[in-house]
């Protein structure tokens, strides 16, 4: 199945971004959703703050669709950006068959067990560290994600980043855009 097919297979594309609290998964989800708005597409986003309170993992979900979106709640994501090991353990079992994983290999130390999933690797935390701020690992992974899925235009994502950090320092926007580009450049197709 090609990437484009994945997008079209259902009416809706369901994405989860998962990691530790502090890894910026909510920001990543926010950027995806904003990019959709820029592209005029239907989108819903949601932070699953369900079972966890303090500590534990955090995750954000996004649903993108060309039609009306029924449920903003994602139970079987088509795609997942996995920022750490516990998130892989948690989400691997529920990803839809044929689904896609973007794995932050810096903090994920195994390959998926399921063989009906596709995976892409990116040393996101490592790369972020190289860029001078480990907190942009989320954006690095996001870069890999959009490069792989072609779900969004890089320009929209850049715009979304610029909008989101508009009130903050310009340097921050720049750093994030660099992270995005690194991510797009350095993803590794898993064998």
């Amino acid at each position, binding site marked *: 199945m090609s990437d484009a097919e994945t997008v079209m297979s259902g009416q809706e594309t369901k994405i989860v971004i998962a990691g530790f609290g502090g890894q910026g998964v909510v920001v990543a989800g926010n950027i995806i959703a904003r990019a959709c708005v820029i592209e005029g597409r239907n989108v819903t986003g949601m932070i699953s703050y369900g079972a966890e*309170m*303090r*500590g*534990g993992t955090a995750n954000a979900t996004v649903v993108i669709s060309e039609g009306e979106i029924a449920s903003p709640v994602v139970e079987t994501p088509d795609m997942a950006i996995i920022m750490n090991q516990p998130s892989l353990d948690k989400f691997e079992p529920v990803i839809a068959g044929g689904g896609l994983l973007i794995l932050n290999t810096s903090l994920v130390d195994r390959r998926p067990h399921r063989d009906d999933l596709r995976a892409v690797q990116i040393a996101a935390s490592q790369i972020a560290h190289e860029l001078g701020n480990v907190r942009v690992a989320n954006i690095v992974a996001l870069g890999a994600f959009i490069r792989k899925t072609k779900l969004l235009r890089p320009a929209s994502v850049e715009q979304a980043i610029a909008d989101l950090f508009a009130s903050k320092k310009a340097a921050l926007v720049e750093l994030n855009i660099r992270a995005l580009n690194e991510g797009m450049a350095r993803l590794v197709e898993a064998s």
Partner: protein
Amino acid sequence: MEFERPTTLLETRTHYCPGCGHGIVHRLVAEVIDELGIRERTIGTAPVGCAVLLYDYFNCDIIECAHGRPPAVATGLKRVLPDRIVFTYQGDGDLAAIGTSETIHTANRGENITAIFVNNAVYGMTGGQMAPTTLLGQSTTTSPDGRGLNHEGPPLKVCELLASLDGVTYLERVAVSTAKDTIKARKAIRKAFVNQIEGKGYSLVEVLSMCPTDWKLSPQQGVDFVNHQMKKVFPLGVYKDRS
């Protein structure tokens, strides 16, 4: 010197954030219960607040109460079982906002219970809104420009407030922001339990405690905030002792 986990505390890893004061206060309470040998006749009340999961950590009977109502629940427990040891463990939102009335009247009735009041100047569990004890100028998610005298009023000082009540036996404010403070805090908590064992009435220990997460500070900065900001507004010490 030996330092071991008190038996009143279960092995479970807590859900608290790194540098959160609740963990320290838990240990102190558990140590005192151990030391006084009262674990098997103690009933604790869990608040709604970050400490809601008290029962996951304490190895004794625990009842989880509605937000702000632990003093009323404790009153019910203690009146029915006067020879059991009943303590409340409450945050500043729980004790000093929604539960103000219950706190004051339980204290003034002189209910023979022990209240552990964890003052971290913010609503921890719900993500950092202004608490009654938030400092002037401290910014929170609901006082984004800092708490202001004009609209929000000054921080509520619970020990000072309760000190005027004739029904109250013992009030002390302590902190857990240095090792020394922690040792003192344990003494105060011990006294508050001993008072109850001796039937002396209502004791409350206010503990200045860290909430680095909602203060948006590192754990170390959290400790500094207690030591340099909170202690100024909330002076440590004994506010009442009729025991």
